C-alpha cells in the first residue's frame, strides 16, 4: 500500500550532522562533580599557595629611597638639580648575607611610562638601525622628532627621558671603601638585544649619526653611552634597552646591574655599604620617587607575596564553599532520585 522510495528526491540526507544527532559529551554540574571538584581545587590551591608564600618569604629585598624630597635624606641637596653634576652618597648596612646572585634595581614611582602618547613616541625602525629613519624620524616622535630641522636619533619621548642616574657601590671594610663590581651585561631581554634593537651597519658607528642630533635631555650621544665598553654603545646599550622596554604600571623598577662577580658571587655579605649616586634625573617636577633595590630571585621570579596569599585565600574559600554546598545539597536533596 505504501509506495515508498520511488520519488523521494527531496528527502533530506540522513547524517548525524543534519539530523542533529552528533555524538556528544554532555557534562552536568551535579553535586557529585562540583563538591569534590571544589575540595580538590581548594586543596591544590592551598598547596601551591603555601609553596609560593614560603618561596616569596625567602627572597631578600633591600629597598632604599634616595629621592631627597625630605631634608633628612643625603640626596636632598641634589633634589632640585641646581648642580649639574650633583653626587650624593647613601650609607647602609646589611645584617645578614643577601644570597646571590643579587640584582641591583633602580625604581621610579608615579612615572607614567604607560601613557599612550609617551609609549608611541618612538621609532622602532630607527631603533632597528634603519638609517632612512635617521634622516626622517617617525612623526609619532614629535616633539622630539627634530631640533631646528635636524633629526633627533633616537627620537621620541621614551628615548629622550632615559634614566641617567648612575650608581657606584662600595663596601666599607675597616674604614676603606672597596668598590663592589657591578655587571651590566645581559640585563636586557635577549630578543631586544639581538633582534629588536640594532645599530646601523656602519663602522665606525659614529658615522651613521652624521646629520643627526642627540635627544635634548641627553648629555651624551647614543654612540658613546658606555665609555668603558665600545660594544655597549648605540641602540644596543643595555641601559638603553632596559629603559626602552616601558613599564606597565606607574610604579616600576628596572634592572640596573647584577652583583655576581668575584667575592660577591655568593651574594652581598653582611656589613656596611655606601652607594654613590650621580644624581641627574629630575623627579621633583611630578612628585615621583626614586629608589634603589637590592634583591635576589627565586624560581618564581622576584619577591611577590600577593600570588601566595591569593592562592591560599582562594584555596580556603573553595574548601569553605564545598562545605556550604554540601550542607545545601544535604538539606534540599537535589532531584537525583526524582
Amino acid at each position: 500500500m505504501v509506495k515508498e522510495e520511488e520519488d523521494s528526491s527531496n528527502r533530506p540526507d540522513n547524517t548525524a550532522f543534519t539530523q542533529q544527532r552528533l555524538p556528544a559529551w554532555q557534562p552536568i554540574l551535579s553535586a557529585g562533580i562540583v563538591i569534590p571538584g571544589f575540595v580538590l581545587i581548594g586543596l591544590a590551591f592551598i598547596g601551591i599557595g603555601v609553596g609560593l608564600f614560603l618561596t616569596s618569604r625567602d627572597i631578600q629585598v633591600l629597598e632604599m629611597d634616595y629621592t631627597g624630597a625630605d631634608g633628612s635624606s643625603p640626596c636632598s641637596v641634589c633634589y632640585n638639580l641646581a648642580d649639574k653634576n650633583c653626587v650624593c652618597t647613601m650609607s647602609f648596612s646589611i645584617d645578614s648575607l643577601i644570597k646571590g646572585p643579587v640584582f641591583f634595581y633602580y625604581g621610579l614611582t608615579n612615572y607614567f611610562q604607560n601613557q599612550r602618547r609617551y609609549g608611541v613616541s618612538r621609532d622602532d625602525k630607527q631603533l632597528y638601525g634603519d638609517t632612512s629613519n635617521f634622516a626622517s624620524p617617525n612623526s609619532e616622535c614629535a616633539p622630539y622628532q627634530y631640533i631646528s630641522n635636524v633629526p633627533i636619533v633616537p627620537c621620541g619621548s621614551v628615548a629622550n627621558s632615559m634614566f641617567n642616574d648612575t650608581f657606584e657601590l662600595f663596601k666599607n671594610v675597616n674604614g676603606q671603601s672597596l668598590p663592589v663590581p657591578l655587571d651590566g651585561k645581559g640585563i636586557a631581554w635577549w630578543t631586544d638585544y639581538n633582534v629588536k634593537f640594532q645599530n646601523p651597519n656602519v663602522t665606525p658607528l659614529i658615522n651613521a649619526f652624521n646629520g643627526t642630533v642627540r635627544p635634548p635631555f641627553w648629555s651624551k650621544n647614543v654612540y658613546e653611552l658606555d665609555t668603558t665598553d665600545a660594544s655597549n654603545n648605540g641602540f644596543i646599550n643595555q641601559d638603553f634597552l632596559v629603559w626602552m622596554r616601558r613599564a606597565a604600571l606607574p610604579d616600576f623598577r628596572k634592572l640596573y646591574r647584577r652583583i655576581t662577580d668575584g667575592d660577591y658571587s655568593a651574594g652581598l655579605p653582611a656589613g656596611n655599604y655606601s652607594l654613590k649616586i650621580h644624581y641627574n634625573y629630575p623627579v621633583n617636577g611630578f612628585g615621583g620617587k626614586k629608589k634603589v633595590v637590592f634583591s635576589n630571585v627565586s624560581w618564581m621570579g622576584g619577591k611577590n607575596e600577593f600570588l601566595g596569599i591569593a592562592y591560599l585565600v582562594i584555596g580556603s574559600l573553595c574548601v569553605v564553599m564545598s562545605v556550604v554546598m554540601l550542607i545545601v545539597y544535604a538539606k534540599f536533596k537535589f532531584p537525583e532520585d526524582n
Partner: protein
Amino acid sequence: ASHKKPDFRGATNAIKTSKYNFFTFLPLNLFEQFQRIANAYFLVLLVLQVIPQISSLSWFTTVVPLILVLTVTAAKDATDDIRWMDVQVGDIIKLENNQFVTADLLLLSSSEPLNLVYIETAELDGETNLKVRQALPVTGELGDDIENLANFNGEVRCEPPNNRLDRFTGTLSYGAQKYPLDNEKILLRGCTLRNTGWCFGLVLFAGQETKLMQNCGKSTFKRTSVDRLMNVLVLCIFGFLVFMCTILAVGNYIWEINKGSNFTVFLPRENDNSAGFSAFLTFWSYIIILNTVVPISLYVSVEIIRLGNSFYIDWDRKMYYSRSDTPAEARTTTLNEELGQIKYIFSDKTGTLTQNIMIFNKCSINGKSYGLKYTGQKDAVDFSFNPLADPRFVFYDHSLVEAVKLENPEVHAFFRLLALCHTVMAEEKKGELLYQAQSPDEGALVTAARNFGFVFRSRTPDSISIVEMGKQQSYQLLAILDFNNVRKRMSVIVRSPEGKLCLYCKGADTIVYERLHQSCSKMMDVTTEHLNEFAGEGLRTLALAYRELDEDYFIQWKQRHHEASISLEDKDGKLDELYEEIEKDLLLLGATAIEDKLQDGVPHTIEQLSRADIKIWVLTGDKQETAENIGYSCNLLREEMNEVFIISGNSSEDVREELRMFLGQFCPTTSCFFHRQAFALERSMELDFLRTACLCKSVICCRVTPLQKAQVVELVKKYKQVVTLAIGDGANDVSMIKAAHIGVGISGQEGMQAVLSSDYSFAQFRFLQRLLLVHGRWSYLRMCKFLRYFFYKNFTFTFVHFWFAFFCGFSAQTVYDEWFITLYNLMYTALPVLGMSLFDQDVNDVWSFQHPELYVPGQRNLYFSRKAFFKCAIHSCYSSLVLFFIPYAALSDTVRDDGSDVADYQSFALLTQTCLLFAVSIQLGLEMSYWTAVNTFFVLGSLVMYFAVTFTMYSNGMFLFLPSAFPFIGTARNSLNQPSVWLTILLTSILCVLPVVTYRFLTLKSLFFSLNFQVMFKVRQAKVTPPPPPRRARIRRTSSRRSGYAFSHAQGYGDLVTSNRFLRRPAVSLASGFPPVGRTTTGFSPMGRSAGYSPTGRPQNSKVPDVEGTSLQMFRTIADPPL
C-alpha cells in the same frame, strides 16, 4: 539565446531588474551597506582612527573586521543578484522543454501547432494538470527565426507589476496594429514548460517584479522579539559607552591638571594643548577603544546562527513527508529563535487540522450500531461481491455486509436512501465510476452506499439510476427539498420502479427527530444512544428517515410547490412552509457517522502544544457545527469543558451583551465559540472580546473571513505582548499568516498561496510540534546562550581597558596588543561560540517531546531578557576586575627568574590577554551543555591557534618583515616561560569560574533552569533514551450529550441537479471580500475549496455572506493507508 531589444519602450525606460552590474556593484553595494546604522557606525570609528591625535588603535583593528563583514554581506548580495543579472525586461528568451520559466514572459512563438505551449503551474498554485497558453498569431509567425526575432520591434503597454496570478491586461503595438494581451499569452515565472519543443518569450517582468515574487513579497518585514530587545540593548550599550568615555575623559582632565602638567618634562604637550582639549580628544580615543562593547561581529554572527538553525529545519527528516516528497522549509531565515517563544497559535481548520477527507465510519440502522475502528488486526470487509465497489473504501464491520447480503429490509432502505438522497453527480471515465460531490460528506455517504451494493450510477434532471444489489433500477426524481443551514436537512421525493412514492430525508438529528412519527419513539431512544456515542468520538452524524407518500396528496403538494417556486413574493418562505408540511411523520431509519479525517497526529500535537502552555485558537470560515466536531475530535474541546460558551449575536448590542454576561460568570473550564466575528472585532468591543477569549481554555472562531482572521491575530499581538504563530494552508489564510509573528504554511494541500507568504512550510500539521518544541526551543536556547555569552566576552574584554585607564593616566592606552584586539572577535573566540550556537542542545529531541514544559521559559523570555543582560554585565564587570587586578598585583614590582623585566607593558599585555582568553573559553565551556567533537575542536583549536598566532606575531621573522607593525617581538618567549605567569593565568581562570559554578549550583532549585536541569539530570543519569512515546490512541469518550451533527453542505445544488444546465462551465469569480486566490480555472476543475462555483450562475447571495465559497468538488472516501 538572449537578444537585447534596445528599442523596447525606448532604452532609457527599460526596467532594470538586477540591482547591480559589474562596475556599479562595488560602489552601489558599499553605499547600501553603509546605510545600515551599524556599518555606518564603524565607518565613523574608522574615520576617528585615522586622526592621529585621537587614534588610540591602529587602523587595522577596525578595518580588518569591517572588510570581513562587508565582504560577507556583499557576497550574499551578489549571489542574490547574480541570478537575475542575465535577464532584463525587453529581452527575448528561448525556453526548451521541461525548462523552468525564469521571468514573466509574453509568449511570442512556439514549436507546437497554433503556437500553443503546455505549462505546469504546480509551483504557482499547486495544480498539477497541464495548462495551455497560446501566442498571438502575429508573433507566432516569427517562429524560431533568430533574425526575425531580433528585429522584432513592438511595444507592450501593460499593467504595473502586481500579484494577481490569474489576470493580465495589456496591449501589444506591432506594426500599425494593436493587439490585446491577456493571461492566456503570458508565461509566469514559476511555471515549467511541458510537452513543447521550444518557445520564445519576451520578458515583461523580471526579478522582484514577477508575479511570483510579488506574491512572495512580505508585506511587513518581520523581526523577532530578541531582535527588538537586542536593538534596545545596543542603544543602551551605546549610551553606556558614551557614559564610560565621559568618565574617562573627566578622569583625563583631572589627571592632566594634577599630574600631566607636571609630567611635561618627559611628555610635553603638543602646542601646549590645554587639559580640556586633551580630555576632549581622550573621549574620542576611548570611543574607539571601548567600541568593542558593540562589536561589529555581533550582527554577522546572529545571522550566521539563524541561517544554520534554518538549515536544520530544511534538513530534518522527521519533518519530511514522504507521501508528497515534501521536506520542511524555512523560507525566512531570520525568525528562528522566535519559534521557541510562541504563546498563541492560530490555526486554520480545513486542510490544516483535517485532511478534508470524509470517511464513512459507523452507522446505526434500525437500532443496531455497526462499524468498528481500525485497530490493525481486523480484516477489512471484502467488497469483491460487488464489481462496482470503490476499492479505496474500507470498512471493518463484517456484520453490516452480512446484513446487506441477508437482505435485511431496513438495511436496504438505509443504503437506498443514501444512494438516492443527495446531489452528487456521477461520471464514468475509462470504465471507472467517479463521483463529483459538492460536499465531502455526501461523497462519503454515496460511496458507502455504492460499496454496500446500492450503486448510484447516473442522474438526469428527473431520474436517478442506481444498481441495487446488482440490479439496475431507475427512480423517478420528483422533487429535491434542498438543504440549507436553517433547515439542516435535505429530502428527495422519488417514485420507485414499483411505482411507490417515497420521501427520503437526511439531516441533523435534532431536526429530524422533531419530525418523526410517534411509532419511532423506541427506536429513537436507541439511536440517540448511538448518536451520543458517535458524537463522543467526534464523528459527524446525520439522521436518516423516510416516509411513504400518498399519491393524491403528493400531486396536490406538487401543484402548490410549483406555484410557490414561480411566485415572486417570498418564494423562499413559501417553499419552506411546503417542505415543512411534507417532511413530517417520518420513520427513522438510522444514523450515519462520518469521520472528518484529521491529519495524522493532530490530537497528539495539540495535546503536546497545550502542555507546552501554548494556546491554540482555531479560526475557520466553516460552520459552527463542523468546527465544534473537529474541536472535539482533535482534543481541543473536551467533554469536561462543560460550559461551551457561544457568542453569536447578530448585532453589536447582542454581542456586547453576550460578552458582558460571559465575563460575569466565568468558569475556568470553558471553551468559547465566536460565531461571525464582525461585531466582536469592532473597536469598542475588541478588548472585551480579547479578555473573554483569553479566559477560555480553548477558542474557536467560526465563519471568519480571511480579513477577520488577520484582525484576530493583530488584536492579540496588539494587547498581549506575546509571540503568535498562524498556520494555514489556503489562500484564505494568507492574511493571518502575514499578520502573525510567524506564519506557517501547510504545503501540498491547496496550492502554494499560503506557503508563498509563510515563513516556514511543511506538509503536515503534526510537524508543528517538532518545529516548536525541538527546533524552536533549541534555536531560542542557542540564540540566548549566544547573546549572553557574546555580551559577556566583549564586556569583559572591554571593561579591562576601563580599569587600566585609572593607571595609565586615562591616556587611552590599550591593555592588549593591537593584533589581539583585531583578532579577538574574529579568530580567537568566533568559532567556539558559533559552534555552541549551532550544536548546543540541553536535552535531545525525544526528551523535548517528553517534557513539553521545557518550552515555557522561552515564552516567558527567561533566557535572554533585560535582567539576564544585566546579570551578564555584572558578571563581566567582576571578571574584568579579576582579569585586570590579579595580573596587576602578580606582576607589580616583580621580575623574571633571571632578574630582568617582566612587569613591562608588553608582558603585562600578553599576560592579561592570555588570562582573558582562558577565562572566556572556560566560561564558554560552562555554558555549553553539548560537547560534540566539533565543539571540542573549536574550543581547543582556538586556544591552540591563539598561541600559534601569538608566537608567530611575536617572532623575529614578523618583526623583521614589518618592524613597526609587530613591536611585541619576543614577549611571548620571555614571559610565557615564567612559572609565575602561568600561576597567574590559573588563578584568574579559577577565580572567574568559581562564583559562576557556585551560583549555578546554589540557585538550580529556584530558577527555571532547574526544570531543564532536572530533565538533563534524568537524561544523563539514565543514559538511555526514553521509552518511545506511546502511540496515543484518541481519548475515548463513551457518550456525549451534544449533537454530533455536522454537514458541510451548501444550498443551491438541488436546483442545479434538477435543472438542465450542464456541469461544465467556466468558473465565476468569487464573492467580493475574497482576496485573489491565484488560480485560473478554465473549465471545471473539481478540486480545492475555493475553486469558486456558483451553481445558480449568479453571484452568491449577498444576504448571507457565505465565507466558504460554495464549490463543487470531487471527494472520494479514501482509506487511510496503514502508517
